[in-house]
């Protein structure tokens, strides 16, 4: 297994290189200019010098290579140094990707924003799956019962009503009308794990964004789990298990569920990019200053280095989640051998 993970990580490198090339190529066609935010009094020849010094006039592949060097080599080394508090080589003067609008390293801003995104996204995904798997299987087990019918309708609503409709409605009901929950997320809130009111505040402000994402995820995974379990319930091995006297609970959990979860994991891996999309919208609705909000602001400010870094980080996270899903595959299905 360990060997497999290492091999998958190595195989991810060419994928990420191609993605970085695509991202870089798209953004390179942009009309953005690093000198556009300078005062108009700066003369044209100085602007040219600034562009020259930023390497703006180099050929495309050279610029791509330089950017890659910063993104893939310098940034990870810097992150490693910060975490372990060490210094490798010339750590004072190492070049980093500089945002055009904040004039500070782009990755520092991204590290600040990452936790908020991962909290909301991770909890939404976790609760979504935790709700979807038991309810979806129970629906399939009692097909056409009232439980199944109600579940089917709720599921249909869950994936038909988009996040950006449900989000404002939640705010209307729970913040405007009832006044129970805050309308937006306060990122400056530092969670004090010893104080109940601090934790309660954090729970309250996470509740709506996480609920919105959970609802959507639970609907799409629940529907899929139901279909997958239904298919497996008709298999011969279920009859075999029942006829040899295995308890119903054991048939469901050990035999059917384990087999049914394999396609669900596939769906999970495939829907990761979409979940990031949902996170961007959720962050926009609830004013969470996570990565999605940062991306929208950077697009508005024409901050190319920041947008490039962000899209690349999204791609890295997508590829990583895919590898995690593949590892889960092996745990669920012993027929899959990783060698």
């Amino acid at each position: 297994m360990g060997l497999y993970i290492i091999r998958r990580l190595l195989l991810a490198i060419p994928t990420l290189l191609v993605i970085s090339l695509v991202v870089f190529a798209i953004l390179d066609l942009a009309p953005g200019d690093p000198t556009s935010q300078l005062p108009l009094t700066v003369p044209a020849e100085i602007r040219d010098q600034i562009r020259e010094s930023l390497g703006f006039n180099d050929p495309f592949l050279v610029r791509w290579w330089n950017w890659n060097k910063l993104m893939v080599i310098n940034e990870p080394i810097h992150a490693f140094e910060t975490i372990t508090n060490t210094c490798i080589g010339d750590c004072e003067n190492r070049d980093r990707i500089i945002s055009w609008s904040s004039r500070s390293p782009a990755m520092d801003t991204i590290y600040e924003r990452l936790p908020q995104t991962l909290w909301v996204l991770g909890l939404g995904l976790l609760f979504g799956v935790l709700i979807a798997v038991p309810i979806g299987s129970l629906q399939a087990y009692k097909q056409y019962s009232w439980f199944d019918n109600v579940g089917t309708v709720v599921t249909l609503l869950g994936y038909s009503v988009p996040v950006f409709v449900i989000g404002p409605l939640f705010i209307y009901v729970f913040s405007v009308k009832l006044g129970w929950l805050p309308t937006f997320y306060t990122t400056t809130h530092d969670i004090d794990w010893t104080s109940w009111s601090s934790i309660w505040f954090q729970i309250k402000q996470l509740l709506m964004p996480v609920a919105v994402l959970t609802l959507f995820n639970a609907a799409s995974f629940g529907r899929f789990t139901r279909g997958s379990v239904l298919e497996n319930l008709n298999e011969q091995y279920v009859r075999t298990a029942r006829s040899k006297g295995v308890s119903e609970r054991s048939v469901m959990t050990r035999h059917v569920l384990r087999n049914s979860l394999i396609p669900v994991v596939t769906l999970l891996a495939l829907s990761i990019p979409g979940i990031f999309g949902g996170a961007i919208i959720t962050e926009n609705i609830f004013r969470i200053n996570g990565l999605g909000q940062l991306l929208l602001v950077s697009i508005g400010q024409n901050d190319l280095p920041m947008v490039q870094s962000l899209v690349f980080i999204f791609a890295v996270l997508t590829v990583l989640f895919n590898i995690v899903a593949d590892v889960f595959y092996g745990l669920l299905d012993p027929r899959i051998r990783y060698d």
Partner: protein
Amino acid sequence: MTEIANDPFKNQHFDANDALSDVASLGEFRSLRSDVWRQFRRHKGAMAGCIMLIIIVLGCFLGPVLLPFDTSTPVVTNANRTAGWPHIWGTDNLGRDAFARALLGGRISLMVGFVAMFVSVLVGVLVGVLAGYFRLADGPLMRFTDLFLSLPLLPILLVVIVLFRDPVQDALGDGLGIFVLMVVIIGGTSWMQTARIVRGEVLAIKEQEFILASRSIGTRSRRIIVQNVLPNVLSPVIVAASLGIAVAILTESAVSFLGLGFPLELPTWGRLLNEAKDRIALNFWLVGGPGLLLSATVMSVNLIGDGLRDALDPQTRSKG
């Protein structure tokens, strides 16, 4: 045709008309199409979806014409009315009827949905058939598909729209420019599932004997694909297309909701929601209205897709 092709040399004097009358004399003649239609009609959800979609489409295209409200000229004295008569969903901050605006917004949303789905299916079928039929193209095309599947699409979509909006609008005019851009980009980033399904189907069909028979009489690849392969992958493509409409409408709305899609002069459901989300405390229906229409459209399209899937699946059909 398939009966002949299955065993081309056994029955030299095969007459299709004879065979047809034989079958017909056995009882009621049931074509595949009528079978599918019968099964589809029995699917309550799909029929409800059909009726709902027809009402929404008619409402969106006829409503703004029939309603006695001007949807473009601001009447500031009439602004921010709450729901009542004659404005059943109230008015927006410029005094325009919210109901008429929501119906108007549906026009562009629906058109983007249908056209983008068409683009997506076209690309998906093309990639899928080429990858499935030509072994040399399979590897590169499927790697290409995998790459697209692992891209974070919404961020890239947003970036591309911002970057190319102005040049395309300059070339094609404001309204048409953004429409074409949205359709091409949404279609160009949602074809992967179709391509995968079609490739799988083509791989299976390619090994069947009627393809071999076709090839053995010297039919060119292009003709085999058009006449023998494409009709046989039609079922999954129809299902993918119906679900693709929902995806396209949702993507367009998401982009417009973030304020990067259609401009305010050309409202879509997403754009109306973007405008209204901060005024929900003033008038609930500014969000509730477009949200309801959007959700109902997506739901009806999903229901129709489910119904089509059941109707086109030979296993469930034979039971019906």
